[in-house]
């Protein structure tokens, strides 16, 4: 018996969210005294597969001929390996959202998503999750012996275990029910769900031509860029950057809000951030009630200063 992790890869590499899922599973496996087995699809080098051991995976089943876009087949493979597993762990990415519900339905195992707590009581597993667009934390109990768990990215520490991960390669092929005819990848961009720092700007920036300083600030911080809803609605920025209750929910370590008023719908999607900074000309802006640090000032003056100060910090 083992705990299963879906080890998602991107172009042959794992990301931090995958290691978070492995670490999370390893933490549970120590309570249950079981091992962690990862399942991964797509072409991944042996060296990369071995890295799953760093965070506590004892073995990995690799399926190089299966594409992660084929959610149906991936779910079937996970089901085959998970027949006797108490938990199947995902990180809550777009890809996981296409697979995990299918696994739950196949196994008739309860699914809990957006998890932010560790397993505490093994006899009656209860998990805390983000609910009501992060306006509430909900405790959910499993009514089934098995559970499909999807953890919120950037919410759990990685812990190194340095195990030697045993690799099995499976040459299985399947037929997808979806024909993928192309992909447009935002090259070089950090994905919002995984970003540790997010620089976000709103209507206070006045126009799309003023985003250069936002991108420069994001660049020196290694941050992802985001925006408020009206900014994406008017087309100043792509929809994929829209955060909030009806956009993406994010939980970075640092969220810098520039020229964003802090409407309830905006805050709903960002208030799980560990530290928030608001920069706004209006001292009454609601964002200052939610932020940890506030600067009342004009973004066109404050942001260039901030860039300079961070550069000089980096140079020292």
């Amino acid at each position, binding site marked *: 018996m083992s705990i299963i992790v879906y080890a998602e890869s991107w172009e042959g590499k794992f990301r931090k969210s995958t290691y978070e899922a492995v670490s999370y599973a390893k933490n549970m496996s120590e309570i249950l005294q079981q091992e962690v087995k990862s399942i991964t699809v797509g072409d991944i080098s042996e060296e990369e597969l071995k890295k799953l051991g760093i965070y506590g995976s004892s073995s990995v089943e690799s399926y190089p001929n299966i594409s992660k876009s084929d959610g149906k087949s991936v779910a079937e493979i996970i089901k085959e390996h998970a027949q006797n597993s108490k938990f199947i762990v995902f990180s809550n990415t777009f890809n996981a959202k296409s697979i995990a519900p299918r696994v739950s339905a196949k196994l008739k195992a309860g699914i809990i998503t957006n998890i932010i707590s560790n397993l505490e009581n093994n006899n009656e597993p209860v998990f805390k999750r983000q609910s009501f667009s992060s306006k509430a934390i909900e*405790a959910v109990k499993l009514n*089934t012996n098995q559970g499909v768990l999807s953890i919120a990215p950037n919410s759990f520490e990685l812990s190194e275990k340095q195990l030697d991960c045993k690799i099995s390669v499976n040459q299985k092929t399947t037929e997808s029910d*979806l024909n993928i005819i192309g992909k447009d990848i935002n090259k070089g961009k950090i994905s919002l769900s995984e970003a540790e720092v997010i620089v976000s700007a709103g209507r206070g920036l006045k126009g799309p031509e003023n985003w250069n300083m936002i991108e420069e600030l994001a660049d020196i911080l290694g941050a992802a860029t985001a925006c408020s809803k009206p900014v994406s609605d008017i087309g100043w920025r792509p929809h994929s950057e829209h955060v909030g209750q009806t956009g993406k929910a994010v939980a970075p370590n640092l969220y810098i809000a520039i020229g964003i008023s802090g409407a309830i719908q905006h805050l709903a999607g960002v208030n799980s951030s560990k*530290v928030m900074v608001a920069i706004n000309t209006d001292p009454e802006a609601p964002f200052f009630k939610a932020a940890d640090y506030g600067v*009342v000032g004009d973004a066109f003056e*404050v942001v260039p200063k901030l860039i300079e100060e961070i550069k000089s910090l980096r140079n020292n």
Partner: protein
Amino acid sequence: MNILVCISSVPDTTSKINFTDNNTKFDSNGVQFVINPYDEFGLTKAVFLKEENQASITVLTVGDPSVEPILRKALAIGADKAIRINYSPTDSYSTAYQIANHINSSEYDLIIAGKESSDYNNGAVPGMIADMLEIPFINACNGLTLEGNNLKLTREIDGGIENIQTKTPIIIGGQKGLVEESELKIPNMRGIMTARTKPLEVIESSDHTSLTESISFEKPAAKGSCKMIDENNINELVQELHNVAKVI
């Protein structure tokens, strides 16, 4: 073409969220309920498809009688028929089960749900339905065009967009991009009048197995007060973020 749009009734986005019965139940007192924002994009898309292709649109929700106003609103926006499955959802599985059961006994080509509902945010119902019915599932779908029974779709993936071709029947978890915000349909007077004469059917539910159970709620810990920093002393902000918060 028969389109089914699954909608859920959720608290208006401006609602303050509170709980009752010792924090075990959502407190709907004073809360205004609306069509789940993600479902609104799908519903408007369905109306566009109908205008172009002579489709018929059924809207469905699983809920007690209190959810009927959102069904009437969907009829006013342009759906032809509404169905309420009489059951107060307790988890994603039981909800998906009721919907799949209905789809099984009908003939739908395109099933449009939202990528998640903005109350419980589990995002599991459409994927579960796909599995129960063994049909393709496109989550976070932000584009759809129809040529005969061939569909071209786009979906959001982490860090990009994927272009997909498939055949009906399918189920999608929709979001913005299916239509733009500015295109969202709002009921007009004529729509509201004709909605009154359109059928709203109530179907009894069956088998209520829940795989999970919501046991309690809490509010996120209140933030401490905001430390204000002078705009002429941005160095202090950087020092705070670096040395105290340790986030840069």
